């Protein structure tokens, strides 16, 4: 005689067996003491397991989910403004870095120093029109030009003394 499979006993105790299978198993249980005992144990086990009635201790997920969805929607709206501000900060930092780097490079590289200003003595050799004894613009005649030329080629008194 073939015994009932354990899985069928489980299904019978859980009320899962179809009508045909159920009738077959029940018929077997009437004549097989071993399977009858196994089924009774399974039935009692189910009843014992039902003693553990896990009731959530006042947890309501709705409020928490509402908050999370609200936060998500704010995050979805935020990127444009958030990224614009972020991009501004990054651009400012880059510009500052480039500026500092450029300045430092110029200060440390000899070839890139600014051209030296002409010596002051060269300016002293070229008298301004206000200091010139002959005002060319005031006397543009050949005589005036000649006088101006003589004045420019004549050595100064202090140069004479030095030589």
């Amino acid at each position, binding site marked *: 005689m073939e015994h009932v499979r354990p899985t069928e006993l489980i299904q019978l105790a*859980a009320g899962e067996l179809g009508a045909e299978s159920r009738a077959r198993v029940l018929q077997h249980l009437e004549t097989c003491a071993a399977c009858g005992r196994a089924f009774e144990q*399974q039935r009692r086990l189910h009843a014992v*397991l039902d*003693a553990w009635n896990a*009731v959530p201790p006042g947890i*309501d*997920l709705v409020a928490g*989910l509402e908050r999370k969805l609200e936060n998500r929607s704010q995050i979805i709206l935020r990127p444009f403004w958030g990224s614009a501000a972020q991009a501004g900060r990054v651009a400012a930092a880059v510009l500052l870095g480039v500026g500092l780097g450029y300045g430092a490079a110029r200060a440390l590289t000899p070839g890139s120093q600014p051209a030296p200003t002409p010596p002051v003595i060269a300016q002293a050799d070229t008298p301004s029109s206000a200091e010139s004894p002959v005002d060319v613009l005031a006397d543009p005649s050949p005589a005036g030009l000649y006088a101006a030329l003589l004045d420019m080629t004549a050595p100064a008194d202090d140069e004479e003394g030095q030589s």
Partner: protein
Amino acid sequence: MPADPQVSDHELMARTATGDREAFATLVRRHQQAILALAYRFLGRWDLAEDIGQETFLRIWSGAKRYEPRAEFRTWLYRVVANLCWDQRRRRASAPLSIVDDCLDRCGDAALPSERNELADRVRRAIAELPDRQRLALVLHRYDGLSHQAIAEITGWSSAAVESCLVRAYEHLRNSLAAKDLG
């Protein structure tokens, strides 16, 4: 406008896909107890169960537009929960299932006789000792009333694997629970 409690899960999902939060809230209230109990029985802690519940429904909200009502909604929902529970256990694979002793204060029914609370505690501990696969199959079968076929759909295991898990789980419990518990 509050959703009609008689509206089907599929209809609520269709409305959730359009961003209807009332429909979503109705869906959450309808299923949260079962989800929390399932996660708690599998993970052994209410705080973890609450996290799983939150994450499950956030995924439901995010995936509502892709939802296709081919199977029963509950099967789809339980699949999400089972996957999250499974991930949670994998992350803590080396750790034994936590048996939190404040459980009886929180989940036990104070109105029940203490003998029944003691029995509930023994059952809880016996189930916590089961290997993960057996425990998941047993919880889905015994406490959520799901058939072998439904468990196979939820877990992605073959029917034979589900049967095997259940037979071994019940056998383990028969052996671990004291003879007096089984009468």
